[in-house]
């Protein structure tokens, strides 16, 4: 599984950003995860718990916010939230919606730093 390498990347990024923002202990890492990120929430959470043991961030918590899949409907000319990545079409008019607006997120949004 690639979740472990993703978890390690999250920790690297958190450490780098903590340094950039004046240091401190990383208490919380907030992450946005989209259904087309290629990462499964539960697996990432378990991998993170393993990964944090391997660095000096055993107390860091990962808070994952799942963001919905949003695509642009070329017929309605608006963004639509889709129920599933298995059916990329507009829930209102049924047109196909190849253009993904949200859903690929695998992004560290913010950190809580303690000092």
């Amino acid at each position: 599984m690639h979740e472990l390498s993703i978890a390690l990347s999250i920790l690297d990024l958190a450490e780098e950003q903590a340094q950039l923002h004046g240091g401190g202990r990383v208490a919380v890492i907030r992450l946005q995860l989209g259904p087309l990120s290629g990462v499964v929430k539960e697996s990432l959470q378990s991998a993170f718990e393993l990964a944090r043991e391997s660095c000096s961030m055993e107390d860091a918590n990962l808070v994952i916010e799942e963001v919905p899949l949003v695509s642009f409907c070329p017929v309605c000319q608006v963004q639509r939230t889709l129920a599933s990545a298995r059916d990329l079409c507009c829930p209102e008019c049924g047109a196909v919606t190849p253009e993904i607006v949200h859903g690929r997120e695998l992004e560290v949004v913010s950190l809580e730093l303690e000092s």
Partner: protein
Amino acid sequence: MITTTRLVEVRQHVLKHNDVVARALREEFRSNGTFVVSLVSSPGAGKTAFLEKVLRKLRGNYRVAALVGDLATDNDARRLARSEVPVKQITTGNVCHLEAAMVRDALTGWNVEPLDFLFIENVGNLVCPASFDLGENMRLVLFSVTEGEDKPLKYPTIFNTADVAILSKIDLAAAVDFDLQAALKSLQSVRPGIRVIGTSSKTDEGLDEFLELLYTERHANTPS
């Protein structure tokens, strides 16, 4: 001692290091006139057989090379080497996908450039490679008729990242009662508009159609 908590905004893609390397690779490929194609599929879908055919067809008229990712063996690299183009193995060990840095490192010091086409065969896996940009111009996803028509619905993420779907082992379609319309419907529902080419590495069906697409796309991507 009082602990104070600060909230800092980050907003960074977790795989930004991979993306940075991939962008640099893509720029380098573009300036060298190299068109790069990556291949993803489940294990056994026929990536190596398909690639062997493509390399043999291209080698007379183009400078071509291939990188091949594998967990442990060099079997695929040896098979591809029979097509008499430069082939280099990337052994990933326990890693289930290729990353941009692995491609960069494999190319460093490999005296094959400048190339017209570089092919990158990913590790056989329909999950992990989805998240990693390799700097390629075109991502092919192969799925064989023996795998079932609903494969795209089971792995929507990787199918959604692909530019072209290769329906491999098409010569076996009748033997396994393959429902082409159902497969096309699955593909279009996870990746609307995707180009689909049915191929057979046994009969060469679809090979010329794929090569035509390659030439057209390379032409469109190469600075004049």
